[in-house]
C-alpha cells in the first residue's frame, strides 16, 4: 500500500531487459528530509533504479511512489516534486549557463523574471556565478556537474535524485557539493547514488547497498557498522611484528592474522578473532611475552567500504 508520508517508496520494484534482470523486487521506504545513499558496483542497478523512480523507465514489476504518487504514471504532479542530476549531464552547447537555467525554470512554469531570479540563486549556490554568461559548450566536466545540480534545484523540488554527483569534481568542488547536500537535507529528501563511500559516510542518514539488481541491505550507517562490526584488532609496535604472526595464527580463537602497512606506511598487525574477549586479553600478553612493546592497540570499527566490499562479494580491503 502506498504511503503519502514517505518521500520515496518502492514495492516489489523490478526491471528486466529481455532475459536480463537489472533490478529485482526492490522495497524501499525513505523518509522525508533525509539523505539516502545508494551504493553498488558498476552495473548493479543503481541508475536503473533512479530512472524507474523518476519515471524515465517503466517497471517490469512492482511500483514506485514519490509522496504516494506512482512515478510510472509520469504525472506532471510527480515531476514538479523531483529534481534529477544524471551521472553525465549534457546541455545545449549554444546556451550560456544562465540561459539554460532560465529555460529549465520556465519549463517548471515560472515567468521569465522568476526563472532568471532562481537561476542566479542556483548559480550562486553552485559557485558558477563567474561562468554564468559563458556557453556551456566551454564548461569543464566539473562545471557541467555543478550546472546540472543547479538545474536539478531550479524547480525547488522536494525530492532530489543525484546520480554520481561528485564523480567529476576536484576535492574542493566535491567538498562544496557535499556542503550543498548538507544544507539541503533540512528541506529536501536526497537520493544519492555514488561510488565514493567516504561521501556517503559523511552526508547520508541511511544507506542501501545493491548488487546484481538485489538490495542487500538498507539501514542507517551507524546500525550497519554495528551489525557488521567484527572482532578485528589492530596492533602497532615499535618494531616489525612479523615474528609474532605464527604464534597468533596458532591460537584457537584466531580466524586470520597478517601484517600490513597502513596509510603512513607503518607496519601493523591485523587480527580477526572468533572470540573477542579471549583475543582482547591474550593479544597484549603474547606481545609482551615476546618482548614487543605495543604503541597502539584498538578494536577496528569497520568502515562503510569494508562493509560494502563484504556485502558485494568483493575482496575485503583490509583482510
Amino acid at each position, binding site marked *: 500500500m502506498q504511503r503519502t508520508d514517505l518521500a520515496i517508496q518502492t514495492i516489489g520494484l523490478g526491471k528486466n531487459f529481455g532475459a536480463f534482470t537489472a533490478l529485482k523486487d526492490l522495497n524501499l521506504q525513505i523518509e522525508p528530509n533525509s539523505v539516502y545513499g545508494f551504493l553498488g558496483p558498476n552495473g548493479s542497478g543503481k541508475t536503473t533504479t533512479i530512472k524507474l523512480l523518476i519515471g524515465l523507465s517503466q517497471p517490469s514489476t512492482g511500483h514506485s511512489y514519490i509522496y504516494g504518487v506512482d512515478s510510472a504514471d509520469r504525472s506532471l504532479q510527480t*515531476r514538479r516534486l523531483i529534481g534529477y542530476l544524471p551521472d553525465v549531464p549534457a546541455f545545449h552547447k549554444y546556451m550560456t549557463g544562465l540561459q539554460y537555467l532560465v529555460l529549465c525554470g520556465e519549463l517548471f512554469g515560472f515567468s521569465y523574471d522568476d526563472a532568471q531570479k532562481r537561476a542566479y540563486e542556483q548559480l550562486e549556490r553552485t559557485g558558477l556565478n563567474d561562468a554564468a554568461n559563458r556557453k556551456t559548450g566551454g564548461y569543464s566536466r566539473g562545471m557541467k556537474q555543478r550546472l546540472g545540480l543547479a538545474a536539478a534545484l531550479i524547480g525547488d523540488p522536494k525530492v532530489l535524485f543525484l546520480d554520481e554527483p561528485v564523480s567529476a569534481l576536484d576535492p574542493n568542488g566535491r567538498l562544496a557539493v557535499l556542503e550543498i547536500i548538507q544544507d539541503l537535507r533540512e528541506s529536501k529528501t536526497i537520493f544519492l547514488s555514488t561510488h565514493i563511500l567516504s561521501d556517503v559516510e559523511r552526508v547520508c542518514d541511511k544507506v542501501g547497498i545493491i548488487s546484481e539488481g538485489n538490495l542487500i541491505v538498507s539501514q542507517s550507517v551507524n546500525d550497519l557498522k554495528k551489525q557488521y562490526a567484527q572482532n578485528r584488532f589492530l596492533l602497532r609496535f615499535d618494531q616489525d611484528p612479523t615474528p609474532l604472526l605464527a604464534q597468533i595464527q596458532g591460537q584457537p580463537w584466531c580466524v586470520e592474522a597478517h601484517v600490513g602497512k597502513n596509510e603512513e606506511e607503518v607496519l601493523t598487525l591485523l587480527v580477526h578473532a572468533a572470540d573477542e574477549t579471549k583475543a582482547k586479553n591474550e593479544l597484549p600478553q603474547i606481545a609482551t611475552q615476546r618482548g614487543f612493546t605495543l604503541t597502539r592497540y584498538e578494536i577496528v570499527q569497520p568502515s562503510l567500504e569494508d562493509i560494502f566490499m563484504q556485502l558485494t562479494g568483493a575482496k575485503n580491503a583490509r583482510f
Partner: protein
Amino acid sequence: MQGFKILFKKEVWESWATNKIFIIAGIFLFFSILTPFIMQYMGDFLEMSGIDPSEFGWEPTAADTIISFLDYIILVAIFAPAFLVMGVVAKELSDGITATTLVKPVGRLAYILSKYLVYLSVFIITATISAFICYFYTVAAIGDLDIVDFVASLLPMLLLLAFCVALTLLFSTIFKSQMAAGGTSAGVMFALYIISFIPFIGEISPFRMSTWSHSIIQGSQEVSVLPLITAVVCLFVFIAYSISLLKKKEI
C-alpha cells in the same frame, strides 16, 4: 500541452543558433535563383558552345521553369530534412538531454510537437519565400504565369515537405544514432520517390504529388487524391507514432 510554448521557443533558438535556418533558406534560395537563371541563359550558353538551341526546340516557358524548380524541391525534400532534422530527437536521446527535459513537468506530446512544428515552419516558410522569388524572377525574365496556378502547384510540394519532415522525425525518435536516423529516412524517401514512377503502386507514394503539381502548372484541374491521402494520413501517423514511441522508450 505543458511546456510547449517554451520548447517551441527553444527549438526556434536552436535552429537559429546551429545555423539550420540559414542552411535550409540557403538551399531553397540557391535553387530559386539558379532555376530561372539557367532557363534564361541556357540558350546563350548553347550558342556560345556552337550549338543552335532551336535544333533542340529550346524555348523555355515560365511553366517549364516553375516545374523545374518544383523538381528541385523534391530533391531538397529527400535530403535536406534527412540531414537537418535527423538529430533533433536522436542526438538529444544519446546525449541525455531528453532525459533531463522529460523529467521536468513537460509532456512528450509537447516535446515532439514543438520540434516538428518548428522544423516544418522553417521548411515551409523558406520554401515558400524561395518559390515566390523564383516565380517573380521567372515572370520578369521568361514569361507570364498565372499566380493562382503557381500557388496551387506549390501547395502539394509543401505538403510533401511536411511529410518528409515527419518521416525524419519518426526515425530520429526510433534511433539513438542521428546518422542512422538520417541515413534511413533519406533511403526510405528515395525509395518512395522511385516507387512513385511505378504504375499503379506508385499512385500511393506521396512523391506522386510532384506529378500533380506539374499538371496544375500546365492548367489541369484534376486532383491526385491517393498521394494526397497517403501524405496526410502518414504525416499524422508518423507524429502520433513518434509520441507513442517516446512514451514507451527507455530514456
